[in-house]
């Protein structure tokens, strides 16, 4: 069996006396769409920040592509792409310039080649006709697509997406889900997606882990299409069945 592309071992995050999560173990295999899910405030985005190297964990180890994220050189950063929840496009640049930036910084390609590749990436996400627009001139869904194009600029084998569907209408959100599946199929990219949008999770995820604020850690791992039926955990069942979780652990439709 292949070595996992990501291995999280005993990951913990504490803020002072407050524990967000602890003992988080998981692996992500190459070519998977792996979803980190859970309710608000359970630490999904923090786990993502740990995995992309923006925040060291309080304890544990995050291995990406065979290297320790916090013990290796910066080179690993050129092998991952990140799409932030807001898109985080540079407002002073056009979409084309945004996508060209990683190519400009990390390659010796001539400007014409960079522009050509950037146009291709924007075309890949359906923004081939918006290359000259600035982030302020496009919609939220377009901004997320452009951010994916920028994250794909260097053809990384691993792409992290933070809440790709947040704030989008169901049609745009479904379009983004389809884009993720297309990119996985066409480029073989591995996706780690943080989301709590049930429809998206069921549409794209091969496997998932579910974090829970009360349990301060992982309460479920596996195929999301089955977790709602097979899990013994009432929170997991309530999440997948869109039920109200009663305080004493009973569920109610």
């Amino acid at each position: 069996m292949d070595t996992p592309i990501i291995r999280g071992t005993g990951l913990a995050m504490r803020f002072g006396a407050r524990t967000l999560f602890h003992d988080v173990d998981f692996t992500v295999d190459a070519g998977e769409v792996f979803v980190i899910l859970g309710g608000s405030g359970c630490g999904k985005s923090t786990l993502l920040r740990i995995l992309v190297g923006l925040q060291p964990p309080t304890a544990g180890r995050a291995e990406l592509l065979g290297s320790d994220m916090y013990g290796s050189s910066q080179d690993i950063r050129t092998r991952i792409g990140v799409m932030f929840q807001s898109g985080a496009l540079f407002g002073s640049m056009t979409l084309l310039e945004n996508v060209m930036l990683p190519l400009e910084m990390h390659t010796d390609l001539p400007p014409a080649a960079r522009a050509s590749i950037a146009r291709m990436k924007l075309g890949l996400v359906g923004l081939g006709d918006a290359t000259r627009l600035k982030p302020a001139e496009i919609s939220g869904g377009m901004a997320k697509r452009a951010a994916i194009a920028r994250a794909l600029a260097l053809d990384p084998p691993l792409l992290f997406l933070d809440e790709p569907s947040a704030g989008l209408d169901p049609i745009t959100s479904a379009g983004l889900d389809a884009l993720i599946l297309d990119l996985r199929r066409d480029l073989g990219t591995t996706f780690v997606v943080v989301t709590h949008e049930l429809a998206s999770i069921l549409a794209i995820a091969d496997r998932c882990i579910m974090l829970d604020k009360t349990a301060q850690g992982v309460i479920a791992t596996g195929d999301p299409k089955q977790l709602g039926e097979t899990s013994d955990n009432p929170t997991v069942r309530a999440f997948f069945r869109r039920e109200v979780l009663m305080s004493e652990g009973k569920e109610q439709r």
Partner: protein
Amino acid sequence: MSEARLSLGERDDGPRITLAGPLDAAGAGAVWTKSIAAASKLRGRTLAVDISGISRCDTAGATLLLDMEAAGGGPLALIGATEEITALIARVRATRMPQPPPAKAPALTWRETIIHGLSAATEGIAFLGETAVALVMLPARMRMFRRQDLWTAADAAGVRAVPLVMLLGVLIGLILAFQSLIPMRRFGADIYVASLVAIGLVRELGPLLAAVILSGRSGSAFAAEIGTMKVNQEVDALTTMGLDPVTMLVLPRVLAGIAVMPALTIVLDFSGLLGMALVLVGDGIPLTAIGNQVAYWVQPSDFYGALAKSAVFGAAVAAIGCRAGLSTGVGPQAVGVSATAAVVGGIVGSIVLDGIFALIFFRLGI
């Protein structure tokens, strides 16, 4: 608009509070404080509340009744409650959670204050070190250095500041000349106003005022620009792309600060001298005499020392502004807080540095 009414009475079975009129959000306010106070006074006794006279009750009215119950320390004995009101009270009661006492921010002890201060100073020094390292590493990271950002920052901080610097320079020169002229005239030393103002401007006020202007105009702008990028996760995006935010965002602005400050200082000096000359010429002192005084008393070392000083002020103001931006937290006030910190830090930093320069120049006899 009708309001609820409150009356207190004593019955055979004990005291009774009677509420009447509309017990809703619009009407309950009139009796709220009195009702709670009355319930508190009856603490320990059966709290009988007659609401048979109320014309309407909404969640605000139910909340008042439950607050009275809490103040009275026991269950309410409601008289005249309809089924709807009883159900409404039950619904509101179900939503009420025991409230923990408001957490008071603990007052900082002297020790904690000192630790906070030292920690902030350490972070500041670490940032300066990081900036210095980025400057040294610049030849190896030239592709991360955006020249366009340097020109843009230099244009915004320097060229566009010239009219303001000239205006303030002329005004400062005018004011200093006017203020000095009267006492100096008593000693028949009108002509020395020129040397007095010139030395003060060139050695101290020029660099310092230019630093204050740079801090107010550009330090805050740097903090707001970078702070907004931080809030929009653009700084995180740079980091995840393997790009150094200090090289990409801080260095162009710091270098722009170093480049434009001496120029702004020269503009301010000459504007100030012009303002001073206007006053003295108006007072009948020939322009040639003023020029001679300035040329005689202001040494080249004064001028060059001030320029060196202003370059350091420029670097400090820009670095403080950028650091404030990179330290931006979360929430709607974060960018404003950073901009304020940049201005205050820039001004304080410039004055502290000026003090250090004064000491060095004194020791060197400059």
